[in-house]
């Protein structure tokens, strides 16, 4: 995987020093609060509901074991000994102080990490397929392109103060695991007839309060012209995106207002200029980047003799659910859902970070990946080690066999941490976990995506879920809107609302109700999405609100 060199580490260090100076001026009263806010956001520092929070960049979700250990140390030193993996493949520390934050950034810099542009109105962490370079359906490895774009977008002088945050995702496989159609810019890489790398560029997708599916801006562009296209698109957005209303400031609004044809013409006009400015494509430099993504040197230790393989049902279930086919037939992709019962989705404590770093060193070439579904991946596990690694993972609660299933839900931090939230999310998911604490039942339901956001910003990607839950505020009370049938993949679509919002007391029951309806009406082997496209929202609606009414009448009678 890509390793930052000494120049980059120095750069992150000088960035931390610059921030230390800004913090000092702010605390001394020599820097205006609104200016400091903009500066701290671009260093990943938010001021949240109860405490400042720092969001650390994990470029396209790739970590090495040394970095994971450093994150564990940071969790102990600056936070309450845990961190939270996010839907942008980053990690957040929820209980830090403004005064400590420069030192936290200096500690990160030592292992080639940083928090640059993890918040604020600028180009954010580039995300990609968490199975890049290892999946069996890959056409182009997107990671070198992610790295190229990461370098280009870091402290980009022209595009550091955009109208609003800007998210780019890249996919290079048949299945889209990066949700490129829900990004400000989505890029799909594929091979042309002469095996050259081509790009399809989509623009103006996004979630938030106005969910929009990205539109194709350009097809079949040589990938080496990508940077010129990105510059042209973001230049037009930087100049014309709305700055008077932050809810109308994302590029999707500009694209919709102008229409894709006019927007495309404007971009093409500027593209030519950037294309001429960029000069010759530096093939050698790109090959260097590509080479940095060569598979790690793997030491395939002999299977430890003290571990006697007992192929229990637990193991078999785990192997079936949490592992995937690798490009290399000797290897297996091992997924680690951070969704054990009673744990907030995406959370991990420092002890487990260190445990996992050791496991990754021994079994996976020291590499760990973060997925946008708030899980982790060990990408280089040898087939013969599967049973041994399962035992290690099971001991530290990282072998819950629920990948892609109901309890592997995506959830934003909600009211427990976030100052934007209207409603709590984590307690709802924990409650649901207790209500459905039966692996057989979860496996019977099968693959299904449940995603939950605590407010309109949709950090939990609820629009793109089989079952989406959105927290809303009604007169100071927590309510929830349910949407069904959304999809983040190549058949991207936005979930449809089932009906009026459901109260906090009834939301878990409502989710169970929807699951029951699905089990009743699905045909053999039919996924939730397929079933939904066949029957629509109606059966869910009827059942949910009929039962809902019944239980309310019942409650009224009891109260009377």
């Amino acid at each position: 995987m890509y390793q930052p060199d000494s120049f980059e580490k120095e750069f992150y260090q000088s960035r931390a020093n610059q921030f230390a100076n800004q913090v000092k001026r702010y605390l001394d009263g020599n820097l205006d609060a609104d200016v400091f806010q903009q500066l701290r956001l671009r260093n990943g520092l938010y001021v949240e509901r109860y405490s400042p929070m720092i969001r650390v960049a994990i470029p396209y979700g790739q970590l090495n074991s040394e970095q994971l250990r450093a994150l564990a140390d940071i969790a102990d030193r600056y936070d309450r000994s845990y961190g939270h993996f996010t839907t942008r493949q980053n990690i957040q520390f929820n209980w830090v102080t403004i005064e400590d934050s420069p030192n936290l950034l200096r500690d990160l810099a030592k292992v080639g990490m940083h928090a640059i542009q993890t918040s604020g109105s600028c180009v954010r962490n580039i995300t990609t397929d968490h199975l890049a370079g290892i999946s069996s359906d890959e056409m182009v490895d997107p990671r070198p392109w992610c790295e190229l774009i990461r370098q280009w977008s870091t402290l980009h002088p022209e595009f550091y103060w955009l109208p609003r945050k800007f998210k780019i995702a890249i996919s290079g496989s048949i299945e889209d695991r990066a949700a490129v159609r829900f990004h400000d810019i989505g890029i799909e890489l594929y091979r042309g007839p002469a095996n050259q790398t081509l790009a399809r560029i989509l623009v103006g997708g996004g979630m938030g309060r106005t969910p929009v599916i990205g539109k194709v801006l350009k097809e079949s562009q040589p990938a080496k012209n990508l940077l010129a296209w990105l510059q042209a698109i973001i230049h037009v957005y930087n100049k014309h995106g709305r700055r008077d209303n932050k809810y109308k400031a994302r590029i999707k609004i500009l694209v919709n207002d102008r229409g894709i044809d006019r927007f495309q013409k404007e971009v093409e006009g500027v593209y030519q200029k950037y294309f001429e400015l960029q000069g010759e494509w530096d093939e050698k430099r790109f090959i260097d980047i590509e080479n940095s993504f060569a598979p790690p040197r793997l030491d395939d230790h002999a299977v430890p003799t003290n571990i006697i393989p007992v192929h229990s049902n637990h193991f078999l279930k785990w192997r079936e659910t949490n592992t995937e086919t690798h490009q290399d037939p000797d290897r297996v992709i091992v997924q680690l859902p951070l969704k054990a019962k009673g744990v907030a989705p995406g959370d991990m404590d420092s002890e487990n970070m260190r445990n996992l770093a050791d496991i990754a060193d021994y079994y996976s070439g020291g590499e760990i990946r973060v997925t946008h579904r708030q899980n982790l991946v060990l990408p280089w596990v040898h087939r013969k080690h599967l049973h041994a690694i399962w035992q290690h993972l099971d001991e530290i609660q990282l072998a819950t066999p629920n990948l892609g299933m109901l309890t592997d839900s995506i959830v934003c931090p909600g009211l427990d941490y976030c100052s934007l939230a209207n409603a709590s999310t984590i307690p709802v998911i924990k409650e649901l976990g207790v209500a459905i604490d039966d692996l057989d039942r979860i496996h019977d339901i099968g693959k299904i995506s449940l995603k939950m956001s605590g407010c309109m910003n949709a950090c939990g990607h609820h629009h793109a879920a089989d079952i989406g839950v959105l927290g809303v505020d009604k007169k100071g009370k927590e309510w929830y809107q349910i949407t069904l049938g959304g999809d983040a993949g190549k058949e991207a679509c936005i979930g449809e609302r089932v009906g009026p919002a459901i109260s906090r007391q009834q939301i878990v029951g409502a989710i169970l109700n929807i699951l029951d309806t699905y089990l009743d009406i699905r045909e053999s082997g039919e996924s939730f999405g397929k079933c939904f496209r066949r029957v629509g929202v109606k059966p869910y609606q009827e059942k949910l609100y009929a039962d809902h009414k019944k239980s309310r009448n019942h409650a009224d009678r009891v109260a009377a």
Partner: protein
Amino acid sequence: MQIIKNREIMQTEWLPDQPIQHMNSRRQILALDTWLEQLDFYRTSKRREALPGVMLQPDENLELLKEWLTKIPVIAINVENFSDGRVYSLAFELRQFHHYAGEIRAIGAVYDNLSMMEQCGFDAFVLREGLSVEEAIGYFSEIEFDYSLRTPVPLAD
């Protein structure tokens, strides 16, 4: 008036916001509207070779100025809001798309971001009142790192 120009502290004679009757004073910076009103005058005047400076707002279009750019010695860009990225694109367009070679001066909410402004083509800065000019000189070199694949943005001469 004290400004930072090419990373040095110096005095400038080019001043914005002078009343119109001072048109004959040569070193003025006029709002774009006012500047354009004088276009006919410039066309006939001996001053064709040394026009007044122009003050641009973040949303202004450069089309109207295009043919005059080689004659304008100073273009000031008003940074209305610290986080308004349009001024960066405006400076970039002036330098890269129109090859403007005169001074591009940032005025208004000019704080810490001098290095990025410089990379986009600004070469002169009037800091927000109350900030230390001496300290601000240091902001240019806080981070000396650039990924080489970025579009090169040469500094103005």
